[in-house]
């Protein structure tokens, strides 16, 4: 029996067990939407902007490991997905983006709502396709899902002209597609793994440096086993947060630009650096020539191109982190690391992550924001530190919530202060650094994990980049908690201007032009509140916990000019770290 192209697409999605699609209709995808209307197995979530759809699919994928699916129309619909695709690509997130295209005979004619979607997305997808015949659909969908979810995962885009959706073809879904040019390596080389074990046994000052690859590969348990077998302290990248529990005595928390003093110092002084699914990003290494100068380096990564890209390593192992560690761990014998661990504990005591909990009074109280009513009173100075809010929420949720962030100061504070204990619980745009990611991503995360607490930590700059998705969250009755750390500034840029541009604040001031976020959230149909003082956090959280059928928006008025510390300036070495005046 012949099916229409649109019906075949939906059959393919069913074969891949897709239960959720995030999308926005438009002229050339109406045939697909017509089929979706009679497909109750697949829930379509109507977003308010296609970028939101991509971040939702991205959040869904990061929380579950399963591919997120996006459906958008041609032209502007497709171009609106670009930032979200690039975000997923940089962080190796499996995603399928289906875009409509003008009919095949009009392609290249500058037709209405035409764009060269495949051309535009070529450098930001793992692969992409333009389908020209309905009989190609099944094969291409099978390949796309296979490519997106295997090896180093990534987004795959399928451009689907309208006439292909309307054409007819037989439907046969290939079992496992064979692609000549695509054979990811999963098994590490046995001798290299043996060599790694020898290097670990010979090391006195090892450090394990864990990245997002360990989370993608579901290797948290294996990482923990490696650390304890080897007696090696562990630091994670931003993307690796949660791959190793931060309440473990071997945890040194995050490293890099805003990492802990002790993690960065340990990396500088170690004699063996074991990189597990991390890629020596510039935000981690700082000045390359001075990065971890005295260590031998083992690098485990599924993508050969990550090896020797930034840092020359002594032992590269290509393979899936989980499988490589499963082979490696039984061979690992505990080296004599006692003195090293003592040294690190000393550093942790001497240079802890801190903030000054007494600081900062707000004169204005509300950064001159429109329509805000509660001024500071002399008797009760307004003082609420972003770090405290995050730390407290971490305590109240036992480090077990799913934390979704935007990008900026609040993101780094979340990374430093939440206290992650579980993999896939820090959902953040690490590679691309996409402001506006948080709120839509949290919608995808909450739909993937409806029984878990989902918290957005955002800033007053970032939240406004995709604030329209409040409508989607309300429409879907999602009880996500949005914690807005509101300082009236584009805080991270302001911090750089403060530290490196002699406080010349250029175009970073949102005071006076920010909306009243409480009213705004309420206008969307969310529950909203505003807090000014540390002691209000617990009560606000308890209040928020009562809401189960819509988002709760907490506008937290934090100091205007607080900086994230420690900080290694861009391009500097880690001994040039600014510990800060907290």
């Amino acid at each position, binding site marked *: 029996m012949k099916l229409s192209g649109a019906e075949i697409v939906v059959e393919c999605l069913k074969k891949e067990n897709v239960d959720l699609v995030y999308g926005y209709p438009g002229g050339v995808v109406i045939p697909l939407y017509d089929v979706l209307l009679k497909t109750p197995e697949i829930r379509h979530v109507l977003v308010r902007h296609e970028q939101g759809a991509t971040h939702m699919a991205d959040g869904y994928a990061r929380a579950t490991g399963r591919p997120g699916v996006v459906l958008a129309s041609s032209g502007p619909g497709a171009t609106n997905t670009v930032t979200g695709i690039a975000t997923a690509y940089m962080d190796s997130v499996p995603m399928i983006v289906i875009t409509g295209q003008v009919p095949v005979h009009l392609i290249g004619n500058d037709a209405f709502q035409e764009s060269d979607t495949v051309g535009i997305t070529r*450098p930001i997808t793992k692969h992409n396709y333009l389908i020209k015949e309905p009989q190609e659909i099944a094969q291409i969908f099978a390949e796309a899902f296979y490519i997106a979810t295997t090896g180093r995962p990534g987004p795959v885009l399928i451009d689907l002209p309208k006439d292909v959706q309307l054409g007819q073809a037989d439907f046969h879904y290939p079992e496992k597609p064979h692609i000549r040019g695509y054979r990811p390596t999963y098994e590490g080389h046995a001798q290299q793994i043996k060599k790694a074990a020898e290097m670990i046994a010979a090391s006195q000052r090892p450090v394990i440096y864990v990245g997002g690859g360990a989370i993608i590969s579901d290797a948290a348990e294996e990482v923990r086993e490696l650390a304890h077998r080897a007696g090696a302290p562990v630091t994670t990248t931003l993307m690796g947060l949660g791959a190793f529990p931060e309440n473990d005595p071997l945890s040194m928390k995050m490293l890099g630009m805003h990492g802990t003093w002790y993690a960065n110092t340990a990396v500088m002084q170690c004699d063996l650096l074991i990189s597990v699914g991390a890629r020596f990003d510039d935000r981690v290494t700082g000045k390359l020539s001075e990065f971890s100068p005295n260590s031998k380096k083992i690098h485990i990564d599924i993508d050969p191109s990550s090896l020797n890209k930034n840092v020359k390593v002594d032992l590269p192992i290509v393979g899936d982190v989980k499988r490589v560690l499963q082979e490696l761990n039984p061979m690992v014998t505990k080296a004599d690391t006692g003195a090293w661990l003592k040294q690190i504990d000393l550093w942790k005591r001497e240079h802890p992550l801190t903030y000054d909990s007494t600081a900062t009074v707000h004169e204005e109280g509300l950064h001159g924001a429109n329509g805000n009513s509660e001024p500071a009173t002399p008797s009760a100075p307004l003082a609420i530190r972003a770090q405290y809010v995050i730390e407290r929420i971490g305590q109240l949720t036992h480090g077990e919530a799913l934390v979704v962030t935007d990008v900026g100061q609040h993101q780094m504070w979340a990374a430093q202060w939440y206290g992650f204990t579980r993999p896939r619980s820090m959902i953040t745009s690490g590679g691309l650094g996409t402001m506006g990611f948080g709120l839509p991503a949290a919608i995808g995360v909450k739909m993937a994990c409806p029984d878990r607490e989902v918290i957005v930590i955002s800033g007053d700059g970032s939240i406004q980049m995709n604030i329209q998705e409040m409508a989607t969250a309300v429409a879907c009755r999602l009880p996500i908690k949005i914690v807005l750390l509101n300082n009236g500034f584009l805080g991270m840029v302001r911090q750089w201007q403060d530290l490196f541009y002699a406080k010349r604040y250029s175009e970073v001031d949102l005071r006076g032009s920010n909306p009243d976020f409480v009213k705004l959230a309420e206008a969307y149909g969310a529950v909203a509140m505003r807090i000014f003082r540390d002691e209000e956090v617990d009560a606000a959280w308890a209040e928020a916990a009562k809401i189960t059928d819509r988002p709760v928006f907490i506008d937290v008025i934090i100091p205007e000019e607080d900086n994230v510390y420690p900080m290694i300036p861009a391009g500097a070495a880690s001994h040039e770290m600014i510990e800060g005046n907290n």
Partner: protein
Amino acid sequence: MQRHTISILVENKFGVLARIAGLFSGRGFNIDSITVGEASEPGTARMTIMTHGDEKIIEQIIKQLNRLIDIIRVVDLTETSYINRELALIKVNASRESRQEIVQISEIFQSKIVDISQKTMTMEVVGNEDKIDAIIGLLRPFGLREVARTGRVAMARDFISKDAPTPELPVPVWEKERRKITADLA
């Protein structure tokens, strides 16, 4: 900065050239020349890319090429024994007086005169880039009207004699790295 000749077997699909060109431009790699043509296996094409860069860059070029789904195999021919050729068409001013000298130059280079007019001669020359550079250099004083070069095509050599030691055939770079590490470990 050694020049490298990289031979790539690709799926013969639309957009493959754009993927490769985009990879080079997007990552700041250089293409000195690129040639494309159908290969022996059905549905595949062979590309020969000449590029340059230090060891680290060449390693990245090959690894990044290998990441592309439509690329089936990447071989850096530079470290092996290989044959390379380029073809050039050269149109040069040729008066009654200079014609004879141009023919002589052409003969020395075993090139063919493929067209002739009142004022010009066009020849076809095949060889490596040095040879083509040399003939162009010799013809330049007559006044070059137009030069069209194909860019390099290349192929690894096979070995004729059965008794000859087994040659190191070009292997994918990843396999090579693996062998090197294995040798180091032994």
